[in-house]
């Protein structure tokens, strides 16, 4: 069996798999953030809380109604997405005319409220969600748990479907056009306010979908999205929010870098993404795929 710089391949590939899974979540979440920012001009700080709500929705659906994972994969994002739509209609739409910072502050406040309420009701220790597809494959050089493989594939499919929806469909063309010039798009007869609401709902649904996928891997807990959303902000700064494919590539790439760091220099694994962010700011301040805005 081969060894790489003295690292046993099990450890290397194990960490790479973990990195890929983290990257999958970074990609899904930064994608949603970028789409929402494009249309609403709001950096959705509530994204982490909505990811957590997705996981919780699945957990509650299972615990209370016995609804299995595969159904929750659809139902939970719809529920959380609808919640997002209500938030947009009641609160967010009141601040579009203000500086971006107010959107950031408003959604930060909302995140505190939501996470605080969940913590109050269910505590912060977390609950396990049963693995829907236990078992795995022995690949010879490592053991590959089936569910984890599924998460990576599912995230890729979701990301590519989002890319396709935005870059190749009629609704996507509306979105792109309205991101550039909402007034003109509206003057063509398209109901832009409704498009904005829908976009937020979809972005939030995407975060919740990531949350459902995470539930069997992580503990379902009120604070599971808190640190994640901060890392995702760094991902977004690194990638720039201009390009959908850029967000996907950056997300997965950073996950892998994190995984590699865990193998070669574990103490830096928490901070490596921020170091990359600092480097990108030095070399290409607009982000790897960004236009200055």
């Amino acid at each position, binding site marked *: 069996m081969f060894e790489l710089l003295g690292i046993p391949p099990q450890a290397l590939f194990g960490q790479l798999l973990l990195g890929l899974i983290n990257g999958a979540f970074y990609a899904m979440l930064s994608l949603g953030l970028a789409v929402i920012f494009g249309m609403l001009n709001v950096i959705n700080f509530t994204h982490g809380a909505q990811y957590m709500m997705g996981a919780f929705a699945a957990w509650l659906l299972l615990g209370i109604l016995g609804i299995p994972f595969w159904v929750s994969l659809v139902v939970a994002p719809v529920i959380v997405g609808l919640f997002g739509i209500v938030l947009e209609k009641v609160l967010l739409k009141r601040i579009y005319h203000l500086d971006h910072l107010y959107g950031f502050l408003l959604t930060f406040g909302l995140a505190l409220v939501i996470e605080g309420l969940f913590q109050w009701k269910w505590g912060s220790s977390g609950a396990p969600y049963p693995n829907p597809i236990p078992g795995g494959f022995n690949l010879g050089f490592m053991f590959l748990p089936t569910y984890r493989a599924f998460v990576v594939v599912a995230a890729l499919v979701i990301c590519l479907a989002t890319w396709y929806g935005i870059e190749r469909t*009629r609704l996507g*063309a*509306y979105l*792109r*056009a309205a*991101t*550039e*010039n909402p*007034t*003109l*798009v*509206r*003057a*063509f*007869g*398209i*109901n*832009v306010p409704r498009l904005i609401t829908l976009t937020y709902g979809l972005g939030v649904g995407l975060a919740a979908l990531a949350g459902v996928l995470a539930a069997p891997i992580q503990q379902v807990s009120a604070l599971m999205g808190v640190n994640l959303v901060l890392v995702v902000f760094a991902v977004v700064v690194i990638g720039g929010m201009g390009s959908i494919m850029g967000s996907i590539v950056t997300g997965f790439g950073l996950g892998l870098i994190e995984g590699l760091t865990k193998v070669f220099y574990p103490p830096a694994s928490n901070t490596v993404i921020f170091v990359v962010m600092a480097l990108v700011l030095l070399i290409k301040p607009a982000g790897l795929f960004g236009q200055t805005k």
Partner: protein
Amino acid sequence: MAETLLKVAGLQAWYGESHILHGVDFEIRRGELVTLLGRNGAGKTTTLRSIMGILGKRTGSIAFDSKETIGMSSDHIARLGIAYCPEERGIFSSLNVDENLRLPPIVKPGGLSIEEIYRLFPNLLERRYSQGTKLSGGEQQMLAIGRILRTGADLLLLDEPTEGLAPVIVQRIGEIIRQLKSRGFTILLVEQNFHFAATVADRHYVMEDGHVVDMVASSDVQQSIGKLQTYLGV
């Protein structure tokens, strides 16, 4: 005589605090091609934007097909059958030519098909998969006109479609505008170049400082040429 399609009366409009239109009155009958002439800053673009409903504050009356639109949102107005080709053209850079062309939704039957539009603008067909803003100025103008022909709108608002274009292209656009008129479109054309305007339009309204100050029929342009030159400061 054809029915009145658009009747603007006592239209006032504001950009924030600044009061731009001070009571604009004019009307267009179905099938007519009417121009708005006037110097820079007279309020021509503002008038089109007011009709389209994309201006914050406006008062007075704008009746389209006998429906009052002054309080409507711009998407609602567009769906009544008015289409707008803005002065700055508004081509979307994140959409390719074909997507730009297909963006405005069809609001009524009777518009041109995509094939007809491409026949009208063969250049666009060639460059169908290019990024919209990578086209030349003339091509972008054709795209901006082309994309509003598909929607089935009866009234087209064209804001200075010849601005900054080479004479051959101006001529080509003139032909297209005449062709559109013969297909039954009603057109409100904003122009500074009244030599061009005179070759295509039935009537001309002259704007000054947020008012319509005069109306000249195309048949009278020759007699009124001195007067028009003073209005337009040429």
